[in-house]
C-alpha cells in the first residue's frame, strides 16, 4: 500500500518531536560515559566518572533510598487509615480536608520548607537529622497515596464487605486489616510506588531542609552541577536514572494490572 505524503510528513514531525525530547537525555547519559565531553566521543568511553561519583556521593544515594523507604512507610501508616476515614465520612469536612491535604503539592516546596524551618528549626537535633527532611517528604507525598487509595476504596463494595466480615464476628480493627487493606492492595501499592518515586526525585523542599550532613541524591546532583565537571554531573544523572527507571516501569505494570482487575 502506498503511504500518502501526508503520512510521511506526520511521521517525520513525530520523530522530530521525539528526538527533541530524547536527545538531551541521551546526550547527558553519553556525557557521563565519555572521557572528555568537550573533545567528544573520539576521546573514548569510560566508567571512571561513575566510579568517581560513587566515591564522592554514595552516601547521598543511600540517604535518598532510606528516605524514600521511610517516607513510603510513614505515608502508608498515616495515609491508608486517613483515606479510609475520608471515604467513610464523605461529608463537607472530609472534602475540605482532602483539599487541604493537596496544599503542599500546590504550594512551592520552598514555602512549605520555610514554614517547617520557622516552626521546628529551633529544635537543633531534629533540625540536623534526616527525619526533618522526612517530615517534608511525607507532607508532600501524602496526597499521592491517599488519592489512589480513596479511588480504590470508593470502587470496591467495601461497606457491604465489612458488614459481611462483621456478621462473621470480626471487630472493627480486624475488619480493617482483613478486609479493607487486602482489597485496596492495588491502590496502596500504586500509591507507595508513586511516593517512593517522588521522594527520590524531590528537590525543592529537600534543598531548603538539608544540612551538609543530610544531602540527598537530587541535592547532591545540584551540588555536582554547580561545582564539579560536567561529566561527573552527567554520570550522577545516569545513576539516578538507573534507580528511578525500574520504579517507573513497576508503576506502569501495576496500573495496567489495576485497570485489568477493574474490568473483571
Amino acid at each position, binding site marked *: 500500500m502506498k503511504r500518502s505524503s501526508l503520512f510521511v510528513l506526520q511521521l517525520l514531525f513525530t520523530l522530530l518531536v521525539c528526538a527533541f525530547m530524547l536527545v538531551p537525555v541521551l546526550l547527558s547519559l553519553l556525557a557521563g560515559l565519555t572521557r572528555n565531553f568537550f573533545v567528544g566521543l573520539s576521546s573514548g568511553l569510560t566508567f571512571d566518572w561513575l566510579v568517581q561519583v560513587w566515591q564522592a556521593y554514595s552516601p547521598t544515594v543511600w540517604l535518598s533510598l532510606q528516605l524514600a523507604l521511610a517516607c513510603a512507610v510513614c505515608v502508608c501508616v498515616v495515609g491508608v487509615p486517613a483515606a479510609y476515614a475520608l471515604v467513610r465520612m464523605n461529608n463537607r469536612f472530609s472534602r475540605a480536608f482532602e483539599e487541604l491535604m493537596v496544599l503542599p503539592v500546590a504550594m512551592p516546596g520552598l514555602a512549605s520548607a520555610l514554614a517547617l524551618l520557622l516552626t521546628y528549626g529551633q529544635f537543633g537535633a531534629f533540625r540536623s537529622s534526616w527525619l526533618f527532611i522526612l517530615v517534608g517528604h511525607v507532607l508532600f507525598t501524602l496526597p499521592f497515596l491517599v488519592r489512589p487509595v480513596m479511588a480504590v476504596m470508593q470502587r470496591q*463494595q467495601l461497606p457491604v464487605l465489612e*458488614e*459481611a*466480615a*462483621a*456478621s462473621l*464476628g*470480626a471487630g472493627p480493627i480486624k475488619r480493617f486489616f482483613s478486609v479493607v487493606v*487486602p482489597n485496596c492492595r492495588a491502590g496502596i501499592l500504586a500509591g507507595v510506588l508513586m511516593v517512593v518515586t517522588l521522594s527520590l526525585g524531590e528537590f525543592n523542599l529537600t534543598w531548603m531542609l538539608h544540612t551538609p550532613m543530610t544531602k540527598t541524591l537530587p541535592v547532591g546532583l545540584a551540588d555536582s552541577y554547580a561545582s564539579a565537571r560536567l561529566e561527573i554531573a552527567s554520570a550522577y544523572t545516569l545513576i539516578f536514572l538507573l534507580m528511578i527507571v525500574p520504579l517507573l516501569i513497576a508503576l506502569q505494570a501495576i496500573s495496567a494490572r489495576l485497570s485489568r482487575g477493574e474490568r473483571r
Partner: protein
Amino acid sequence: MTAITIRLKGCRKAFADGTVAVHNLDLTVEGGETLAILGPSGCGKTTTLRLMAGLERPDVGQVFFGDQDVTRLPIERRDVGMVFQNYALFPNLDVAGNIVYGLKIRGLSALERNKRCDELLELVGLHNHGRRSIHELSGGQRQRVALARALAPRPKVLLLDEPLAALDAQLRERLRSELNELLRGLGITSVFVTHDQGEAMALGDRILVMEQGRVAQLASPREIYQQPANAFVAGFVGNLNAFQVIAQSPRGLTVCGGELPWQAGEVPATVYCRPEHLRVMDGEGHLHGRLLAQFFQGAQSRLLVDVGGPQPLLVDSSDNQQHAVGAPIALAITPHMLFTLNA
C-alpha cells in the same frame, strides 16, 4: 442445640432524612421456623432484617435472641449468619478462605477449620471447589459459598437478604428448593427478605407482609393467599378479581354477569377471588361473558373475560383449550374460594 426465638419488641427505626422505615414493630420468630418478610421495595423489610442482625439499632424498642436482650450488641457479637443480596464474598480470598473466615476469628485450629470447611463444601455441593477464586464462580456457586460462609461458625440464627434475587429465573427455581431442603434439615431459626411472593410462599413457614413500615399480615403462606387480611396483601401476593355485589339473590349474590354462590349471612359490598379459582365450563356456569383475549403461558393460559363489569375478569385455565375471541364463556367458582377484604 435448640433453635432460639427472635423477638422484636416495639421497634421503631427512622433514618436521618426523617423517613420512618419501621413503625413500632412487634414480632416473634419462633425457634427453628423460617420466616419470610415480603413486601415492595421501601416497605421496611430490609431494615427489619438489619435490626435483627444488629446492622441497625432501633431508635425505640428492644431485640431479643431467646431471653437475651441483644439490642445494644453490634452484629459481630450477636452470633448471626448472614447472606447478603450480592453475596459480599471477599474477593481477596478463595472459596475456602471465605468459608473459614468466621472460624479463624473464633480461633479454631487449622485442622478444625479444614474439617468444617470440607463439611460445608459438601453440604452446598461444592466439594473440590475450595481453592477456586471467587471470580471464577458462577452466580449460583457464589450464592452457595455465601451460604456456606454464613453457616460455618454454626450461628444461632440465619438471616438472608434477597438471597436469590441476583440469579436468573431457572437457577432461582433450583436453588430455592435446595435452600428449602437445607433450612428444614438444619432446623435453624431463619429469616429472609424477599420481594418475590413465589419465593416467600415456597420457603417461608410463615410470611410477614409489610406495608410502609408496618405489619400488613403475619400468617402461613396458605392463609396469606386464601384469606388475605386486606386489599394490599391480597393484591401483593397474586392477582385478584373483584365483584361488586348488586343484590342478594335466593342462591347467593347477584353480580355483573351472573350469580355467585354465597352462604354467609351478611351481604358484603364486594367479594373477591383468585384467577385460578374460576373454571371455564362447557355448559352452564355461575357467570357468563365473552372472551376478550387469551394469552398462552405454557402450563396454563390466561383469559380475559368481559362479564359487563368495570374490569374484565382474569381467569387462569389449565385445560389448554383454545377459545375464539368474542365467544361466549361460562365460568364457575368453588364457593369457599370467594373471600371478602377489609379495606
